[in-house]
């Protein structure tokens, strides 16, 4: 089976979707001729023409707002916001328009759009190229939020997102674009070509939205993670020799609560990990759900490891980023509690 980077896998998902359905259009800043600053859309304009893949003005509200109008017309836009940090001008269009169009019009108009955006840190991107705003989307009624952690899932989830009848936020952990980064920034990253989840089948397949994956089966503690933190958690489990069960959520909303609850009831302990800031982060929701659904099975408080509640710093990136050492400490403490 061919191996692809996450960039290639995401591009392949769009390629397959554009090939199968002429209603799929792709646009965003630098997305057309050049193929995007991360080169994710490279070659799509050459293959499908300027009507199907084109450059947009630097205007995120305009990109999402026009995509909503296109979806209302009957197209299926898959747009790129260059960095998740740039999505705020489009937040009104996403939360009050895209998310509510089906509801407020009772299905008279719908909004099948996908908004892709690179998320997360680890590239010395500073405050405006490192944020993880997923909780700002999961808090909104009417949006689905997806965070893939590997090329195989990225392709299948993106095709599923494009085929979904409702708006989907597709957050691409940019530190995973070229390999499964585990937080050890001082070591070389294994390329996806040497990782089994870099195997990406040709042609059409989907990974269903709303289904988590167990990346490592274990009995001591359940770790809930998504995106880059899946690999950080794996590294932490190996380094502490703790038999952690690591769940890659893949879709934050709708959430695969059944998989979470079954695991925590088995292990009796739970650590929630994300890059985004702690307070009111998605980890708060996860920890509340675990408490509500597994309270009598818990042998320790649910722990959270997250980005500190500061803006994303530049020089202090690796002190900010919740790497394997911090996750490992949380695992140990949760087992000792």
């Amino acid at each position, binding site marked *: 089976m061919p191996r692809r980077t996450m960039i290639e896998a995401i591009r392949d998902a769009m390629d397959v979707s554009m090939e199968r359905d002429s209603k799929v259009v792709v646009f965003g800043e630098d997305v057309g001729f050049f193929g995007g600053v991360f080169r994710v859309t490279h070659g799509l304009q050459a293959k499908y023409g300027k009507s199907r893949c084109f450059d947009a003005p630097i205007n995120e509200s305009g990109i999402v707002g026009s995509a909503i109008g296109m979806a209302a017309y009957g197209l299926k836009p898959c747009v790129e916001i260059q960095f998740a940090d740039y999505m705020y001008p489009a937040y009104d269009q996403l939360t009050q*328009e895209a998310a509510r169009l089906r509801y*407020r019009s009772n299905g008279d108009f719908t909004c099948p759009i996908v908004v892709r955006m690179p998320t997360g840190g680890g590239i010395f991107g500073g405050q405006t190229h490192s944020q993880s705003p997923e909780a700002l989307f999961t808090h909104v009624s009417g949006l689905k939020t997806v965070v893939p952690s590997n090329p195989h899932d990225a392709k299948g989830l993106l095709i599923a997102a494009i085929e979904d009848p409702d708006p989907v936020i597709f957050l691409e952990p940019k530190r995973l674009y070229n390999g499964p980064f585990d937080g050890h920034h001082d070591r070389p990253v294994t390329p996806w070509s040497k990782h089994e989840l870099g195997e990406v089948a040709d042609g059409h397949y989907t990974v269903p939205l*709303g289904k988590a994956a167990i990346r490592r089966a274990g009995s001591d503690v359940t770790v809930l993670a998504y995106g880059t933190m899946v690999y950080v958690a794996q590294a932490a489990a190996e380094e502490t020799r703790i038999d952690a069960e690591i769940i890659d959520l893949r879709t934050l909303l709708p959430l695969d609560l059944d998989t979470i609850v079954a695991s925590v009831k088995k292990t009796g302990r739970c650590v929630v990990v994300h890059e985004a800031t702690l307070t009111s982060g998605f980890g708060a929701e996860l920890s509340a759900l675990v408490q509500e659904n597994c309270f009598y099975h818990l042998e320790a408080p649910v722990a959270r490891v997250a980005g500190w509640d500061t803006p994303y710093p530049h020089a202090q990136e690796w002190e900010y980023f919740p790497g394997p050492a911090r996750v490992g400490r949380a695992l140990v403490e949760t087992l000792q509690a």
Partner: protein
Amino acid sequence: MADAGMLRFHVPEPEVRPGGTPDFSNVTIAEAGSVPRPDIDVDPRTIRDMAFSIIRVLNRNGEAVGPWAGLLSSEELLEGLRNMMTLRTFDARMQMAQRQGKTSFYMQHLGEEAVSCAFRKALKPGDMNFPTYRQAGLLIADGYPMVTMMNQIYSNETDPLKGRQLPIMYSSKEHGFFSISGNLATQYIQAVGWAMASAISNDSRIAAAWIGDGSTAESDFHSALVFASTYKAPVVLNVVNNQWAISTFQGIARGGSGTFAARGLGFGIPSLRVDGNDYLAVHAVAKWAAERARNNLGPTLVEYVTYRAGAHSSSDDPSAYRPKTESDAWPLGDPVMRLKNHLIKLGVWSDERHAQAEAEILDTVIAAQKEAESHGTLHAGGKPSTREMFEGVFAEMPPHLRRQRQQAGV
């Protein structure tokens, strides 16, 4: 250069406030028939002055004059009059129903009926409007059932929107009327996107965007002009300048640009100003702009100069911020009276027939109201089920909403 001294902060003020005498002497109004009608493929650079003039067809004697006249037959004009009268009567009844507690909120069109009623007639079936809350004439003029509008206003058991949306935020794809959001300006760029999609699909349908004078200050207005201009989208960009954004006079949003139409000039978009209380002028300009869109000539910005004679909404009292007699002093008159006088001048209408039509329309509206009320009003009679509250968030209800619906006991 001499010392300029301290900086001074400038906040524009309207000419007159409550207690003062209304004065529109600063509003320059071109004579009816005086503004030329360029070809639709005109070079926008040669018609920049049209963004500062006012296209008018009906003169003070009730005659249709000049190059923008002559597009509509007497029958079409009579239908236009009836639509405007229907909208006005509908508004009066629904405003009263709100005062009677039958709904929470209402917004009327008083003085602005010509804009949406005439515009609708310049479009073709399949075209799509992205309206604000003051374009119900688009529905009335397209034959959308009044009783369905009332069901929505009452949020009753037959409300097509299942009680989920604020009164008057209608939606009808079938009638080319995009779901009204209630947010301001967001729909403007969406209209441009719809138009881009139509062009991408090599379709022949066009879009119309709607916004008020106040909301042109929103960044989405600017986004829409950028996208419309860049992609030459087949869209008519409508700005309804009714002088007042709730209590804020139009000068606060307009700033130093002179007119709202002039906003389009920097984008190279042909930008016209039209007498919004002149049914014939609105229709003629809308038709011109729609033809441009349909012929791949791109967007047109049209500013309709009108006056909001009523309150902003049922929650507003304009006497707190403008003279009570200001609407009487408005120099462009009343759209219904002006079309009525024109039809009388044409010899196809009379005061008697007008009075008779008013009575007939009132009967029709009351009959629709009775039927709608038989299905309930906001606080009495049939209402949408609580279960409906959980439906339609997504195409398929996800597990967390199913759990919450069970918790709610529905």
